[in-house]
């Protein structure tokens, strides 16, 4: 079971697994992060680097029980799968960044 509610909160109160309600854009209109995107720790840190102060989010609170050993095994599989698929681009900064973002998302799906 998962409960969800919408809130507008300052960036320092954001936590992983919150989902964005509205787009975040740069002053020139470029899209930084779109609505329905799910937050992770590194995304929150990067948003603060863009000077974002407040955002509207949906907070999901999970209360399901999960076996930590099973979860850790799955997280390792995710990491190994990404390392394998990214094996030829592991030295390129943009691709390292993308791999990190995907890892956090896939991990978040397991533990949320």
């Amino acid at each position, binding site marked *: 079971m998962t409960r969800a509610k919408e809130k507008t909160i300052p960036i320092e109160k954001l936590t992983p697994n919150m989902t964005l309600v509205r787009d975040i854009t740069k002053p020139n209109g470029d*899209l930084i992060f779109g609505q329905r995107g799910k937050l992770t720790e590194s995304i929150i840190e990067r948003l603060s680097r863009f000077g974002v102060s407040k955002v509207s989010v949906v907070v999901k609170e999970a209360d399901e029980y999960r076996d930590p050993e099973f979860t850790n095994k799955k997280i390792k599989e995710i990491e190994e799968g990404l390392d394998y698929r990214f094996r030829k681009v592991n030295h390129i900064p943009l691709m390292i960044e993308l791999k990190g973002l995907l890892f956090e998302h896939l991990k978040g799906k397991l533990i949320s």
Partner: protein
Amino acid sequence: MKQDILARKLERMSDLPGLPSVVFEAIHLLHQPDITIERLSSSIQLDQAIVSKILRLVNSSFYGYQGKIGSLSQALVLLGFNTVRNAILSISILDIFSGIDKDDSFDPRLFWLHAIGTGVISQVISHQLKHPRVEDFFISGLLHDIGKLAIIKLFPEDFFQILKEVKEKDISIIEGENGMLGINHTEIGHRLARNWMLPIEIQEAIGFHHYPWNAKENRAMSATVYLSDCLCRALDIGYGGDSLVPEIDPKALTILGVEPLFIAGCLEEIDLEMERAKSFLNVFNY
């Protein structure tokens, strides 16, 4: 491969079945400003095999009207001309490439899953960027690799040899195609899309999905399909012929006007839409 052999092989492109005339009719009629639902319906009704497949597809959970659409006119009213046109295109092209057997090195279901994944991701990116015709982005992603299917149909032995080399040398499928055929699926797909007279922006997305900055008509659509293809591989959705994530050229992000972080903001919606899109394959018994 020597150029003369290649030229002879490419002549066999005409061996591929053409699109049914109803598809051309539908695309042509849709460009007429005074088109009515009655006129379009009566034109498509001439091909009953297509009509029954359209109804199966539009009643799948992919479109969200499960079992509620009883006629072509109703589909046109509820879904709009463009969506029905895209349904007709998808149906006809999946039909042309049906009958490819599963093999140890090639599973058509995984191929179509990669195609649908790329379509879904293209749709989500265009939705996030507030594009008014997201379904056109879906169809471009869905069809981006038809060149590979043309290679399988026309030169099956070469294709399986390419797959073998791709595995042995740990190279991308496009490198394998260039090495063995001297041409790759983007160029073959582009020719096929031109022969079929698909809308120009879809032709471009098929032809330039590895180098979208060369597109002229709709660079954003080609860049979206390029990025979606890369993401689909990164997320391990289906199989596009190799297990590599290609390098994303920042030029594509510049064309779209997005930061790399934008991609992370699309992932939740991609997960949701992928679940829905799987019904698309079920309609075609894949």
